């Protein structure tokens, strides 16, 4: 993956590569252990009788075993979408490389954990409420001004009427 870090650390390779390498190593070592010599030794009597056949049977055994194992691994990778997950996990590890402290982990108590998940919504709600409250206060201030003006006007009209009344008496 071309990271600028230590060449000796196997985790510098992507997880997918490590996975493949580890499985290959396993197979290699298994086949080495189950060598032809060992096989022929176990089936000595048959080997004495039919050496070529023994060899051919052994080769098929090894080949078939390797194929089955590799197929199984591929199935596991496909089912779990592991290729994609490995790459994405590698990326996350790379991005977190400057983050030295242990990261958050679920506490196992849902009530505790759900708190932080709710906070962004609550913060949004709070800022919305602040906004509409301010708007409402402003609106009311304006209407209050109109109401006061209206009261003055009514008082004024009443005075004028009173004056006219007097004039007619």
């Amino acid at each position, binding site marked *: 993956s071309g990271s600028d870090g230590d060449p000796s650390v196997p985790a510098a390779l992507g997880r997918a590569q*490590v*996975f493949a390498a*580890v*499985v290959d190593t396993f197979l290699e070592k*298994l086949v080495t*252990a*189950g060598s032809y010599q*060992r096989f022929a030794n*176990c*089936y*000595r*009597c*048959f080997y004495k*009788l039919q050496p070529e*056949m023994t060899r051919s*049977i052994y080769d098929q*055994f090894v080949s*078939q*075993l390797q194929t*089955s*194992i590799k197929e*199984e691994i591929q199935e*596991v990778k496909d089912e*779990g979408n592991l290729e994609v*997950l*490995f790459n994405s*996990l590698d990326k*996350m*590890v790379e991005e*977190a490389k400057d*983050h030295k*402290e*242990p*990261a*958050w*982990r*679920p506490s196992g108590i849902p009530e505790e954990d759900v*708190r*932080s*998940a709710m*906070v*962004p919504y609550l*913060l949004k*709600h*709070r800022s919305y*409420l*602040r906004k509409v*409250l301010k708007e*409402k206060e402003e609106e*009311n201030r304006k*209407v209050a001004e*109109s*109401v006061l003006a*209206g009261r003055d006007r*009514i008082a004024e*009209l009443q005075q*004028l009427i009173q004056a*006219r009344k007097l004039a*007619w*008496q």
Partner: protein
Amino acid sequence: MSVNPMAYEAQFFGFTPQTCMLRVYIAFQDYLFEMMLVVETVILKKLDGFPGCKISPCQIRKSTEKFLLFMKEHFDKLFSKMEEVLLQLVLNIPENVLLPEDKVHEQYPYTKEEFQALQDEIQQLQQQYRAEASAGQALQAELEEQKAVQAELEKILQWFDGLDNICREHGTSNFKESFAFLTQNSKKLQDVLKDVEEKSKKIKKHDQLL
């Protein structure tokens, strides 16, 4: 030996790494046994083609068991090593890594008290808003009332203005004075009438007493 449940890994991968390893182990083992069985079957079949030979199926079975036992030992050892590497390097999430879906927990690490304070603040804001809203309604209602009252008062004022105009048109500015005179007189009349009524009441009372 403490068992790491690898729950965080399970959250990410959708399976527990140990379960995955177990599944693979069982599958591999099954293949090994299967292959050995095939080998044995093939050998036995080939032996059928050699009617004179002295090799018994029992011997073959013993050979198979020998080889299989040997293979199984190595298989378990090698698989165990492989599992260790995979669980440590591949199927694990390092301690300092946070899954993106859990970002909120790093961004908003609110304690119980801080969270409660936030909820309280929101509740208070809601109450304030409700109060402002009803105050606003009351103000609007008064505004509507004022409009109606103003309209009535303005009508009355217009009526007065109308009267003034009539007077002006008919050149009887005295109309105002004579109207005022009339209202005064009618008031005086009313007062006199009241007086007379009272006096007659008094007289009637006197008559009754006598």
